[in-house]
């Protein structure tokens, strides 16, 4: 169910202003209480959208993060990283 938690988090970034502001201020603290696996948490905090996509996060929701550069994910960074989906990465 935890990919669900990443989708929910992205949804909340749009619909929950307090959460969005918390992520801007302190991303790790903002998501500390969320039911995420270590892999999901690391992927979010490092902005690894390719990994999150490969885990099954819905791209429509994942792309929300770029609206406010959450987790440092700018549009350009998202674009570059999403094109590495399916490749072997470090």
């Amino acid at each position, binding site marked *: 169910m935890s990919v*669900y938690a990443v*989708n*929910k988090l992205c*949804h909340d970034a*749009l*619909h929950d202003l307090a959460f969005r502001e918390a992520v801007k201020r302190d991303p790790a603290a903002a998501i500390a209480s969320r039911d995420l696996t270590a892999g999901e948490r690391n992927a979010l905090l490092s902005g690894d959208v390719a990994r999150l*996509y490969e885990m099954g996060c*819905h*791209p*429509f*929701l*994942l*792309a929300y993060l*770029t609206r406010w550069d959450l987790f440092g994910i*700018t*549009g*350009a960074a*998202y*674009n*570059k990283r*999403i*094109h590495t*989906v*399916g490749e072997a990465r470090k």
Partner: protein
Amino acid sequence: MAEIVAGFGMPHNPGAPALVARDGPQCETALYYADMAKHIDAVAPDVLVIFTDDHFNTFFLDNFPTFAIGIAEAMAGPNDQTPMPHYNVAVPGALAAHIRSSAIAGGFDIALVQDFEVDHAVMVPLHFITPQMKIPVLPIFINCLAPPLPSAQRCYALGEAVRAAIREWPQPLRVAVIGSGSFSLEIGGPKIPPGERIAGTPDPQWSQHVQDLLREARIDDLVAEATTDRMLAAGNIGGELLDWIAMLGAVGARKPVTILPQNDHGQAFVAWRWN
């Protein structure tokens, strides 16, 4: 006794209202929506039925219906922070309940939705074609975004069931049906073009091909070709074609009176009118 008197298909890009506000009424998007609005005015419908796909704003993945009909006296939106005016519009609740009951009796499994707001997929078209919001609007939600999607055959049959239900309604209402969405669109997935944006149009040829089939009223061919795989090959939002296919089930196999293409955005504005 109520009748479907016209059909429309059009996109719902959330950027369109701001784009038109910036570029003015002579820009292409404004002109194309205005053409649709002109047809709507001429048809003078009593009700607009809109086949729409929620983008996780009305529903979420905790409870996401394949098919749902909104049964209420009014609805508001957009509920997804799309930059545009916020509107309230009447919903013909009794007619909506009747359509749902009739479709369930006909073998469809349609979720009950009684307290809801709607997103840009409903409100962007309405903003352009009925900004006074005087015509009641009846939303029928189809899952176009979260695979597995319903089949094109099933969605076409849903449209036919909606038409049958409308014809059973005892009042002589004039009903226009709308299919909302694009044919080729990718958001946030690997098919976006390299650069800085997170959206793109992977398959403008598919968009043109869909219009070629519509122009010739080759609806059987369209339904047969519109597999989930084919739609999603045109982009992860390509399933929105299902909204059009449901609308076509309600309209029947007719040739459109106008097709206005925007293939670089994988979409088009199309109107069907008869008698």
